[in-house]
């Protein structure tokens, strides 16, 4: 009997766990079909961006490019430069808003997550419960009151209108707090306290370096939501509008802009995707602790 078990165990370690080869092959094929469904539209985005106009309108449509060109991008650039706001200004706006909001979000979320996870104080549980609840409804619910509040604070039509709400991302705080549960040993904090370090020093010198993998995760989530914002309704001045707004104006220009529109789709896709590819292992590291614990 015991021998039987040993035999069985040996078989596991040799052949992996309970797997049949046929099943594995079948599952992998299904996975490939799904992957094709996911990636095909994106491949069209990429190839269209480099197609000359006659290839974009070729019948039947082709997935690949025969004569790749960067005409779409140069056309887009000249279209943009003919507007009275220089193209670089929109890029600056988007980069500035995204960078500041993401930076503030990481600092604020880490500070809050630290005390919520590692300290005892009245109100801690109810505050976190509110944060989890806020993950459960979409931001569309709060859009109108947000406008009213910003109006009374006098920050409509300033960069703050886009930066401040993004800095208070409940998703960021949530992921950061869950990540701290496993990544910061309490013993280290205790030792630092015994050595007489104050809380701010502990936070800055010990906690922040330890949660570095989570920064990247917050960056990708913040990046993807802020990069996609058009600032509609919150920013009126042309000089402060983000890139996505300007690009959308190009896309709605009709059929003559098809090439430029393809370039726009590519430009919007590239930055978030690049950030994700570079930081994938760090992000998965953070997401491992993302679960909701009762």
């Amino acid at each position, binding site marked *: 009997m015991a021998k039987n*078990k040993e035999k069985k165990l040996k078989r*596991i370690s040799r052949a992996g*766990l*309970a797997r049949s080869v046929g099943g594995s092959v079948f*599952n992998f094929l299904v*996975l490939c079909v*799904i*992957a094709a*469904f*996911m990636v095909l539209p*994106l491949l*069209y985005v990429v190839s*269209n961006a480099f197609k000359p106009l006659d290839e974009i309108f070729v*019948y039947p*449509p082709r997935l690949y490019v025969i004569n790749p060109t960067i005409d779409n991008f140069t056309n887009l650039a000249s279209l943009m430069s003919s507007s009275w706001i220089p193209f670089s200004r929109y890029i600056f706006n988007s980069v500035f808003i995204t960078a500041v909001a993401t930076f503030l979000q990481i600092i*604020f979320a880490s*500070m*809050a997550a630290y*005390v919520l996870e590692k*300290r005892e*104080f009245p109100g801690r549980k109810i*505050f976190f419960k*509110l944060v989890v*609840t*806020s*993950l*459960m*409804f979409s931001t*569309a*619910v*709060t*859009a*109108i*009151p*947000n406008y*009213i*509040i910003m109006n009374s604070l006098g920050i409509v039509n300033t960069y703050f209108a886009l930066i*401040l*709400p993004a800095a*208070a991302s*409940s*998703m960021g*705080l949530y992921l950061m707090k869950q990540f701290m549960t496993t990544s910061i040993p309490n013993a280290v904090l205790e030792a630092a306290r015994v050595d007489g370090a104050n809380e701010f020093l502990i936070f800055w010198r010990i906690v922040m370096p330890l949660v570095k993998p989570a920064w990247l995760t917050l960056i990708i989530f913040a990046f993807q939501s802020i990069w*996609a914002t058009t600032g*509609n309704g919150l920013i009126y001045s042309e000089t402060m509008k983000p890139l996505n707004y300007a690009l959308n104006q190009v896309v709605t220009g009709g059929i003559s802009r098809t090439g430029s529109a393809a370039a*726009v789709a590519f*430009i*919007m*896709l590239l930055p978030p995707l690049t950030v*994700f*590819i570079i930081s*994938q292992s760090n*992000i*998965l*590291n953070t*997401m491992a602790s*993302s*679960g*909701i*614990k009762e």
Partner: protein
Amino acid sequence: MNGNLKALSFKEKMKYQLDLAKKNYDCYLFLAPFGLLFIAFVVMPVFISIFFGFTDYNLLEAPGFVGLQNYQKLLVNDEIFTQAFRNTMIIAVVVGPLGYFASLMIAWQINELNNVLRAIMVTIMYAPSISGGAIVIWQYIFSNDSYGYINSFLMSWGFIQEPIQFLSDTKYMLTIVIIVMVWMSLGAGFLSFVAGLKTVDKSQYEAGYIDGINSRWQELWFITLPSMKPQLMFGAVMSITNAFSAGAVSTQMFGSPSTDYAAHTIINHLEDYGGVRFELGYACTIATVLFVMMIAINEIIQRLLNKVGS
């Protein structure tokens, strides 16, 4: 006597809490930057929304209290809302579960692959959810004329003679929104599953195997899923919130409002009254209804998931 004791213990409790708060006052300083913004832009807006939902606020005049009039109009007299509600529910019921189980199954199968393949697959599967502006490609795919990728495909294989009016025929619109949303549904929840599967203790599988588990499905059901319950709950929140947030896809594909309101969702309706007609009071009523719906469904699903395996 008894009541006295209770009052005393309550008083003591309060004093203890107050002492604790005083002793840890620095915690509130750490919490303050996030906390103030969170209260200003998330907590207060919910209450403001509920409040203005009972008024006829229109941005120009001072809001007047109208009681339940907005709710009455919304639930009884607003046929477009009924349509939007129907569409939202259809989308949510399909996209929510489909996105959730697809995330889980795909993450599970990706976990079987080696590291390089896994990294490639995760990127491919996750990419659509962060593609943002790239969603415009679906307009080409479903384009009404024979240059549309699907029309072109169907015509060259002889399935149809004339191009199908995918983007203007009302009977296809909801399906198209659902397809695009499913395409984009492998988001944060999916990453949570992929990461969670990696952390399941390997020795559990060996123990389970000795206990008679002999297929990968049994392994999934008896070992893997119970040990990643927290991730399953997080993924559920992400799926539900995403599924009920349909609106942007519809606007991008068909404009707002879509022909005959065929792809009109609650969020489209909300944006219509809030952003176009400036009937903010009524828009807040819509927002409140959506808020209550999303919280209620999330809570119900959380309760159900909590029961699984316990």
